[in-house]
C-alpha cells in the first residue's frame, strides 16, 4: 500500500510487488483473464478448479443466500408469528423502509454510528502515529513496549467491554480514581454520557491497529531519507512533518477506511458494555438492528434497517475495494 504510487507507473500485468526478490518469480505469472486463452502454459491444462467448490458452496449457502434472503425479508411483514412460515408471509413492499426512515430511531442511529466512528478515529490516529514514531528506533526494552502496545488489540472485544463495564460501574474504580482528583462525572453506563463512554472505550481498544499500520509505513522509509534529512539539519518536527509523514499517507488512509468500517460494524463493544435494550444515546446501527429483530421481533423492519446500513457501509467499502490492487500482494486484507 505504501508503495501504491510506484505501481501505477508499472504495466499492470507485470506489476510484481515492489520488492526486488519477487520480481523474478512474478514475471510472466498471473496473466489477467484476457491473456488466459492465448497462453498455453503448464498452468493452463488440467486446472483443478474443483478445489474452489467446497469454499464456494459454503460461502454461497451461508453468505450469499442469506444476503438475498435478507433483502427479500425486508419487503415482508415479518413478526414472531409469521417468521416460522416466512415463505408465505405477506409482502408489503417498501412499507418497512418507509417506517424505518420516518418512524424509527434509524436516522438517529446512523448519525450516532457515523459520529462515534469518526470521533474515535480522530483520536486514535494521532495516538497510533505517536506510538509508531516513538517505537520506530531501537532502544532497550522496545520489544516489550511493542508487545504492551498490542495488548488492547489482542484482547477479545467481549473481554475489553466486560472489564470496562466493571470499571465504569457507579462507585467503581474509575469513579473512585476521578473523585480523588475532585472530578465527578456521573453515570457512565446510563443516560446521555454513554455516547462518550462508547467513544472512549473504542479509542482504548482500537488505537493499536492504527499503530500497526503506521509502523508498517515507517518501515518503508529508506535509510537514505534519514541521512538526507540529517545532512540538511532538519529539526525533528520538520523532519516528521515533511519527510516522514508523507510515507504514512497510504497506510493511514487504509487504516482509516478499515477502522471506520470496523467501528460502524462493531456490535460486541456496545452490546456487552451497555446490554440490550441499550440507552438511546448508544443505540448505534448494529444494536438497533439487533434489538429490532430479537427484542421487538419486527423482523421485516429489522431486515430493512440492515439493508439501509449495508448501503451506508458500501460507501467506504467501495473506496476500499477500488484502492486494493487485486493482483498485487501489496494490499492487506487486514480486519478485526
Amino acid at each position, binding site marked *: 500500500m505504501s508503495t501504491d504510487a510506484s505501481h501505477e507507473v508499472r504495466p499492470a500485468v507485470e506489476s510484481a510487488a515492489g520488492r526486488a526478490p519477487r520480481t523474478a518469480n512474478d514475471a510472466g505469472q*498471473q496473466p489477467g483473464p484476457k491473456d488466459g486463452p492465448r497462453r498455453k502454459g503448464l498452468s493452463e491444462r488440467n486446472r483443478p478448479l474443483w478445489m474452489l467448490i467446497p469454499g464456494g458452496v459454503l460461502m454461497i449457502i451461508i453468505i450469499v443466500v442469506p444476503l438475498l434472503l435478507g433483502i427479500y425479508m425486508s419487503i415482508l411483514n415479518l413478526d414472531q408469528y409469521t*417468521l416460522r412460515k416466512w415463505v408465505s408471509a405477506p409482502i408489503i413492499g417498501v412499507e418497512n423502509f418507509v417506517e424505518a426512515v420516518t418512524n424509527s430511531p434509524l436516522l438517529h442511529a446512523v448519525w450516532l454510528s457515523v459520529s462515534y466512528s469518526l470521533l474515535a478515529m480522530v483520536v486514535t490516529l494521532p495516538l497510533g502515529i505517536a506510538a509508531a514514531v516513538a517505537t520506530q528506533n531501537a532502544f532497550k526494552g522496545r520489544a516489550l513496549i511493542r508487545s504492551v502496545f498490542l495488548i488492547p488489540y489482542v484482547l477479545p472485544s467481549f473481554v475489553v467491554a466486560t472489564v470496562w463495564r466493571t470499571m465504569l460501574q457507579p462507585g467503581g474504580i474509575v469513579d473512585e480514581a476521578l473523585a480523588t482528583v475532585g472530578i465527578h462525572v456521573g453515570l457512565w453506563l446510563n443516560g446521555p454520557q454513554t455516547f462518550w463512554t462508547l467513544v472512549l472505550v473504542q479509542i482504548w481498544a482500537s488505537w493499536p491497529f492504527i499503530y500497526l499500520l503506521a509502523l508498517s509505513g515507517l518501515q518503508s522509509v529508506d535509510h537514505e531519507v534519514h541521512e538526507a534529512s540529517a545532512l540538511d539539519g532538519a529539526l525533528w518536527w520538520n523532519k516528521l512533518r515533511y519527510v516522514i509523514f508523507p510515507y504514512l499517507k497510504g497506510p493511514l488512509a487504509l487504516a482509516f477506511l478499515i477502522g471506520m468500517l470496523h467501528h460502524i*460494524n462493531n456490535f460486541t463493544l456496545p452490546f456487552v458494555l451497555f446490554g440490550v435494550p441499550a440507552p438511546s444515546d448508544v443505540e448505534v446501527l448494529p444494536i438497533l438492528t439487533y434489538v429490532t429483530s430479537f427484542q421487538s421481533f419486527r423482523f421485516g423492519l429489522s431486515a430493512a434497517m440492515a439493508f439501509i446500513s449495508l448501503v451506508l457501509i458500501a460507501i467506504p467499502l467501495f473506496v476500499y475495494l477500488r484502492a486494493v490492487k487485486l493482483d498485487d500482494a501489496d494490499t492487506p*486484507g487486514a480486519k478485526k
Partner: protein
Amino acid sequence: MSATIAGRRSAPTADVDRPGSHRQHEVLRLLPGPLLVIILVFLGALVLIPVLYIFLASVNSDIGVANGEFWPSSVTFENYSKIWTSVGLATGLTNSVLVAGSTAVVSAALSVSTAFVLVRYSFRGRLSILRGLLALQSVPGTLMVLPVFVLFSSAATYLGIQVIGTQWGLFVTYLTFAMPFSTWVMVTYLRGLPKELEEAAKIDGASNLGVLFRIVLPLSWPGIVVSGIFAFLLGWNDVLFASVMTRPESQTAAVALQIFGASQEGGAIPYYGQMMAAALVCAAPVVILYLIFQRYLVGGLTAGGVK
C-alpha cells in the same frame, strides 16, 4: 521487518552505521528524548493500568470491586476456583475451544486449496472471486444474523436438520465467515512463494494435488498458521451469533462471561471478582496464541505492507 533492518545494515555507509552506534541513532532519531519518554509512559500507562486492574480485581472480593478498590483489601484466589461451576464457564470454554478450534483447522485447509487455485491458475472470473472475497469479509455480522437464523430454522422445519442450538450451527457459520479473510491471507502468502519449485515438480510428473501437498503445503506453514489463527479468533471473539444461536448447553465462553454480570438485575452485587477472573481466563488462549505467533501474526495483519 527483518528484511528492512538487514537492508539498512548493508547500506553503503555500513561501517559507521552499525545499529546501536551513536551516530546511527542520531540519524534515525525521530523524536527528541523527553517527548519520546512522555509518549511511551503515557501510552504504556493507558494500557497497563487497566490490565493491572483486571489482575487485582480478579483476586478481590465482589464488594471490594464494587467499591472501587484498586489494591484489594483482602486477597483471595477463590474466584479462580469458583468460576468453573458458578455459571457454566467450563462448558462455555469447552464449546469455544471445540468450535473455534475446528473452525481454524477446516478453514485453514479450505483456504489453502482455494488460494492455491486462485493464485496459480488463471481462469475466467478469477478477479471477480478475489474482489468478492474482499467484499464479503466486510459484510457486517448484524446484517447476516437474522437471515442466517431464518435459514437455519427453515432447515429444521423443511429438512428436519436441527442446526440452531447446536455447536454445528456455530461451526458452519464461523467457518464461512472466516473463509474470505483466511483465503485472502493465503492468497497474499502464496504469491510470495517461488513458482519454479512447482513447475519443476510438474515437469517431474507431479499432479496438481501432488504439487499442493508436497510443494505448497510444506512451504506455506506460516501463512496457514496465520489464516488458521484468524479463523480461531473469529469464532472465539464472536458474541453476536453465539448469543442468538446457542442454548445453555452449547453456549460459548463469550456468552458465559456475560452471565456473571447478569445477576445485578436482582439488585445484589454481581460476581465482579469472578467476572474479572473469567475475563482473564477467556483472554488467555488468545494472548498465548499471539505471544507464540506474534511475528507471523503482525506480518499477516498488515499483509505485505511490512515485508
